């Protein structure tokens, strides 16, 4: 065993709270995300899952791939349902269970935004997680507010003409107790952030970039590579904000050119050289801003 592998083994808790037999596509990053998130959260956790891929991945009827309770909920109300669970538990004397809303980008950027905003504004004692695969993947790849400009989806056959909604800024504008970005290629970072989120009282938010082989049109074995490249190119900076204090978790300079990340993803096949240059310029500007923050 290499030195790195030994270190990783020590830093990531061994108990598995997600089992094999889930119904995800091959190479699904949403399952990696759940597996690592639960390692950080531990078994004293209740999940609220609105309509999203995980509605299906958690298993049909009596079968479940998760070893923590799951409350399924309608699409628009994940955050409100989660805060209801928290209030219900506290009223019955359970002050310690972590209640997590676990939603996709559609349920967060779009239909669930009001409920998310309300819960964040009230500083509800919940952790809201958005696993962002950048489109409505469960319904078969339609554009959401999380879809980046230029990406093909079933409803943007020429490529999305609007930029990805800046959800992170919207959430930060609610003054959450804790905010973080994460992606499963950086598993230790992800686990650490969930451990930290578990300890914070009040509203917490984590956005996970979750590559999706059928939706992004790449081979399943490349999931971790795209998750890693998203960070290495500066497209998805890893950072956290605790009570307004910003901290970059990984240097943004030097970084790889974004063309390495875009290449091989079928959803970007139609991008012109100009579009790639524009995306690079946007990343450079954003990274410069974050480095000064």
């Amino acid at each position: 065993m290499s030195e790195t592998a030994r270190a990783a083994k020590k830093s990531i808790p061994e108990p598995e709270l997600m089992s094999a037999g889930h119904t995800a596509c091959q190479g699904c990053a949403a399952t990696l995300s759940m597996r690592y998130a639960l390692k950080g959260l531990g078994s004293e956790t209740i999940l609220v899952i609105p309509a999203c891929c995980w509605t299906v991945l958690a298993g049909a009827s009596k079968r479940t791939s998760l070893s923590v309770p799951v409350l399924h909920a309608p699409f628009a109300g994940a955050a409100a349902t989660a805060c209801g669970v928290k209030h219900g538990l506290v009223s019955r004397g359970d002050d310690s269970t972590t209640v997590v809303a676990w939603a996709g980008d559609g349920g967060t950027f779009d239909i669930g935004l009001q409920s998310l905003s309300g819960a964040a504004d009230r500083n509800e004692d919940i952790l809201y997680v958005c696993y962002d695969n950048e489109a409505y993947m469960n319904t078969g790849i339609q554009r959401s507010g999380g879809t980046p400009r230029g990406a093909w989806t079933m409803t943007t056959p020429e490529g999305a003409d609007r930029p990805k909604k800046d959800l992170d800024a919207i959430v930060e504008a609610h003054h959450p107790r804790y905010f973080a970005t994460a992606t499963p290629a950086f598993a230790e970072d992800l686990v650490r952030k969930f451990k930290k989120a578990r300890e914070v009282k009040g509203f917490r938010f984590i956005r996970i970039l979750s590559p999706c082989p059928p939706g992004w049109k790449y081979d399943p074995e490349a999931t971790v590579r795209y998750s890693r490249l998203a960070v290495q190119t500066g497209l998805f900076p890893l950072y956290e904000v605790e009570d307004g204090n910003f901290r970059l978790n990984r240097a943004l300079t030097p970084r790889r050119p974004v063309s390495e990340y875009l290449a091989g993803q079928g959803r970007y096949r139609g991008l012109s050289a100009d579009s790639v240059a524009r995306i690079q310029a946007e990343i450079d500007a954003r990274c410069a801003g974050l480095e000064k923050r």
Partner: protein
Amino acid sequence: MRKVLTGNQAAAWAAALASVDVVAAYPITPATQVCETLAELQASGHYKGRYVKVESEHSAMSALLGAASAGARTFTATSSQGLAYMHEMLHWVSGARLPIVMVDVNRALAAPWNLWSDQSDSLSQRDTGWLQFYCASNQEVLDTTLMAFKISERLRLPSMVIMDGFTLSHTYEPVDVPGAEEVARFLPPWREPSALDPKRPAAYGALALPKEFTRLRRRLENDMQRALETILEISSEFEEAFGRSYGLIEPYRVGDAEALLFCAGAAASTMQEAVDALRARGKAAGGVRLRVARPFPTYSVRALSRPGVPWAVVDRAFSPGSGGVFRQELEAALYPLSRHPSVRGYIAGLGGADVTVELLSEIWEDAVLDRKDSTEAWMEDAR
């Protein structure tokens, strides 16, 4: 203790007395005062539960879905557009078999904007799997809300306690408010055996295949039918404890009546006055108040039905394209009788239009002719 309360205040007092654990609510005219009174009762220590001031009605019912799944006793109040906005959640919580209690203050649905009472909001939700109780006084609002918790928890079905906007919600009446200890004896704390608990990992509401889905739906319908009996049982327990009695329907001077008025809500009190006025003029009038609309008390109305005695249904809600809602339900209930009487519908009191003694008398005089021609008429207050 006797207090002078509006219908809204009576509802809030009932929730406080029921030792509700979690309230989630959002203001809307004319139900806002329920939210405000609960905040006052919390400040004065009468309401000891938690209060989530959510950002919408959809989130109010979502929060109660979460809280009730965690085993809490829960309550909210809304009206009209707010109730309509909750629609998908109403189906969800009855399917999840959660004993949530909600007060709906009847108000018309827009467009155009309208603030006043009719039953289009609650009757639009009649297929959502909620028990529906239509109240005719502020005392009944308080009593029914208390009973609703017990009924809902026994059947694991949610309850909607309904009162007329303004006519009850904003009108002061003397109300007998029972003591907390008395209520606690009638309504013990709610213990949900399958509440969400990290020690018992399980999935709630996960995808069900057609066979099990059908079984769950059938069980829900069986329990809805069983509810008729349960409501009467708990009403007797309530009468034993507090001395006030409530049924599924409330007949008034029906014995020798030649035609029967039929309506729900506060208009039913006016109906009793109309019956008295007609009787004073030598007319054999009678009336029936529908108190429980879901489940529909089919056998109770059949038992009152006599061949040749027409029913005049006063509908404050209609289904565009098929007419008055209660008229259709009463027809469906009576049709299997071998000699069913005629049922004539009268659409009245929409968007807060007055349902007066004169209007109801006119309706009765028309119905007693038993013309058997058209089935429905639109009525306007002549004033």
